[in-house]
């Protein structure tokens, strides 16, 4: 099972992302699988950017914890990462600029200097950033990636207008490739390229495509890392997909616009990160009260407050669960992998429109910004679109339309503005079936009670639609890992490692956070021998949520909150420690 992981490091502005993009796309085209995670900082130039790209011929769901080839674009990278390279790995560096401490290398790892200036000499005066292309070329040779496909990828990236530039880049890359061919042994990965073309795509881009599939027609957002990727995609592609894309003055405006649009009958979505979501909470309650559909994504980053804007964390669950005052129905979904990013959007819109409520999606920097290979056939463009009960109109032009009719399942047919006979006012004050306020003049406690219950009933019915959670891996196991959202990728591989080491392990990763499958999850956890909650935060927000919903506590937990995503080997090791400590405690 050939596989390797490349690390590219340098300062912001040194072209790290493009190395990852070219190599990643090439691998995907050749039919390999890839997963890349970019560790960067909240600074425009400088800092230490560190991208890891894992390429394998089987599906990979995280960036792993091996390091086969490192491209050091600056001294800093060599200093930081030389010692991390696996035995048998290689360090590629610009011999003119970077000095390597060979003693730091693990046994069998080797440092391979590339005479970049010499190789670039034929090109005349070129920008300093060009070193990345030369070193990439050298890495292609080591990793035995076919050069012809790289050529195609580079050409595709520059497009028709950039033919000359593309050519120059290809030649620079070839210079590195040829130099490496002459001087270094490849890693011996023995690929079999299926040449099945795969996409290379981020979670944010998958959300965007999902929105198109869902028939989203309105997208509003205010820039905020790590949610901005959706805005970028939408700004570029919205018009051709028939989507109105707006970046208004703040997040208050973002969600209120989206609710206005959603209320009017178009599918409207918005996204932000934790701080922006905090500003949106009041309007989430408004959507609950108006019974207006809206889909909102909170892409978590390391908090609290401004926190570490370019780092990942899963610590906004409390915020999303508690968004806005009062009791009202809402749905909270946490997609667990790239494909679910796509699939969750149509699902969210169907729930939002059928039940007329806000659907909140929780993602995180890891899920939203990582790049991964994806089969194009996996994207189900032809999803069912369910718009729920809609009033068709009538010739009655009088007052009296019951927008909030008391129904058995709590859902009252909507009347899109513009529909004859369906005139009404949707109000955030408590109201009666017609929407007439009952907060003024005579507060009507019995009607108030009915309206609270009507809204509440929607949740009971909705809950029945949601697919129940299932155990992944063996039905019976010594250890059950429990988690949510994006951690699935690392948890699955950790379980695999553990099973390989004789610790039978299965996992439960929850996507449907609210409403919660209390009965099903309780049954699963009660059967489990030893449960460990794995999550990317300090206080164990999901662990607490689990207890709130089931009354059950887990036997141990693994938490990380330094901003870096978990790695499978690290998790597997910690599981063993936790089990050991836990069984001693018993």
């Amino acid at each position, binding site marked *: 099972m050939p596989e390797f992981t490349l690390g590219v490091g340098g300062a912001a502005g040194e072209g790290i992302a493009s190395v990852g993009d070219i190599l990643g*796309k090439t691998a*995907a085209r050749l039919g390999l699988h890839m997963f890349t995670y970019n560790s960067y900082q909240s600074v425009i130039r400088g800092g230490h950017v560190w991208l890891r790209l894992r390429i394998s011929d089987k599906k990979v769901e995280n960036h792993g914890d091996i390091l086969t080839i490192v491209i050091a674009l600056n001294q800093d990278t060599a200093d930081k990462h030389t010692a991390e390279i696996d035995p048998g790995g290689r360090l590629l560096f610009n011999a003119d600029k970077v000095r390597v401490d060979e003693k730091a290398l693990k046994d069998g790892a080797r440092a391979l200097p590339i005479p970049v200036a010499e190789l670039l000499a034929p090109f005349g005066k070129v920008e300093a950033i060009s070193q990345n292309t030369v070193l990439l070329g050298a890495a292609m040779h080591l990793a035995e990636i076919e050069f012809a496909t790289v050529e195609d990828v580079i050409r595709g990236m520059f497009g028709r207008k950039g033919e000359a530039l593309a050519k120059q880049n290809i030649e620079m890359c070839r210079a590195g490739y040829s130099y490496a061919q002459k001087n270094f042994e490849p890693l011996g990965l023995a690929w079999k390229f299926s040449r099945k*073309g795969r*996409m290379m795509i981020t979670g944010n*881009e998958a959300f965007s*495509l999902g929105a*198109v599939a869902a028939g989203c*027609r*309105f997208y509003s957002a205010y820039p905020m890392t790590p949610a901005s990727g959706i805005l970028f995609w939408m700004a570029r*592609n*919205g*018009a*051709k*997909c*028939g989507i*109105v*894309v*707006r970046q*208004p*003055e703040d997040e*208050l*405006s*973002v969600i*209120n*616009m*989206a*609710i*206005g*649009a*959603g*209320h*009017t*009958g*178009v599918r409207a979505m918005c996204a932000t990160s934790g701080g922006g979501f905090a500003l949106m909470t*009041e309007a989430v309650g*408004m959507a609950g009260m*108006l019974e207006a559909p809206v889909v909102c994504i909170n892409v978590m980053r390391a908090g609290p407050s401004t926190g570490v804007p370019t780092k990942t964390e899963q610590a906004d669950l409390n915020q999303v669960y508690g968004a806005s005052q009062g009791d009202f129905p809402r749905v909270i979904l946490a997609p667990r992998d790239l494909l679910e990013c796509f699939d969750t959007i149509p699902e969210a819109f169907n729930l939002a429109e059928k039940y007329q409520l806000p659907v909140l999606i929780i993602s995180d920097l890891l899920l939203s910004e990582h790049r991964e290979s*994806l089969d194009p056939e996996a*994207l189900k*463009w032809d999803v069912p679109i369910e718009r729920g009960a809609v009033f068709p109109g009538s010739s009655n*032009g009088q*007052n009296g339309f019951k927008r909030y009719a008391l129904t058995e399942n709590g859902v009252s047919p909507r009347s*899109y*503005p*513009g*529909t*004859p*006979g*369906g*005139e*009404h*006012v*949707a*109000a*955030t*004050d408590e109201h009666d079936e*017609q929407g*007439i*306020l009952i907060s*003024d003049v005579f507060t009507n406690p019995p009607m108030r009670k009915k309206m609270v219950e009507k809204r509440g009933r929607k949740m009971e019915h909705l809950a029945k639609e949601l697919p129940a959670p299932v155990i992944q891996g063996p039905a019976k196991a010594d250890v059950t890992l429990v988690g949510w959202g994006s951690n699935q990728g690392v948890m699955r591989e950790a379980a695999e490692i553990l099973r390989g080491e004789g610790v039978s392990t299965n996992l439960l990763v929850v996507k449907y956070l609210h409403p919660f499958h209390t009965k099903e999850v309780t049954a699963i956890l009660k059967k489990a021998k030893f449960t460990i909650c794995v999550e990317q935060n300090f206080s164990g927000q999901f662990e607490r949520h689990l207890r709130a919903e089931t009354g059950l506590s887990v036997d141990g937990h693994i938490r990380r909150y330094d901003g870096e995503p978990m790695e499978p080997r690290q998790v597997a090791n910690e599981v063993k420690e936790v089990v050991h400590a836990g069984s001693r405690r018993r």
Partner: protein
Amino acid sequence: MPAAAVAELPVSLFKGPVEPDWCPGCGDFGVLNALKKAVAKLGIQPKDLMVVSGIGCSSNLPGFIHSYGVHSLHGRSVPVAQGVKLANHAMTVVITGGDGDGYGIGLGHFVHAVRRNIDILYIVMDNQIYGLTTGQASPTTCKGDKTKSTPTGNPEAPINPCALALVSGGTWVGRGFSGDPNGLADLMAQGIEHRGFALLDVFSPCVTYNMNNTYPWFRPRVYNLQKEGHDTSDRVAAVKRAFEWGDRIPLGIFYKEESIPLDAIEPALKKGPLVQQPLRTSPEIQKELMLEFM
């Protein structure tokens, strides 16, 4: 908005499901009546009218007119209305709210909506007080005025909403008075017909909590800009007029210009109202989108 001339409708068509619960004598009655008159005159069907408000006495208005309406959050009527208009730009969208709602908590949205220039009429019932919360200073309360929150006199200078709109690229800026119902209805009709974001600030006295800016206080002071030959195409002159306060207070249109509203140039709206567009994209576009990633 209505391109071709249409037949007037009876005002009674717009009678709401309940009687207004404003205090007897409240200026907002005049605004409500004028609005009904204006839309009736323009022949806008109730189904094609969307009245959006925030929270406040004034913001209760949508409940008292027969049409579509959203009674949204305090300070958020403007973004909600913009979302409505972009979703269905065939509708006539009117925002009705208060000075606290629009110029206090909602100020940022207001100024940005002016520069964004989506085709909406924004009517502010400016009573220079927070009515519904029983009488605190608002952003247009005069300096020195005593209110429940400023018992020894308001130390802050008021904002100047018309001037704010004027310097933010406003394409139609006017002011009315609920003591002049016909003039007010006429201004509303013009504001609706204007293509772009129109601000209509309306003196709408709060007879319960504002004892300074009352009907008798306004009557001798207000004058009509249009009767004094004001040049509505001169932005600087308009700002100068907007600064007038005290003995002479202008009503009417400060400024107007032909404009192409954002909803008219937004590419996704070229094929008609968004709400009428099909939800599926073509397989060609799907393919194109996927190819970008390969």
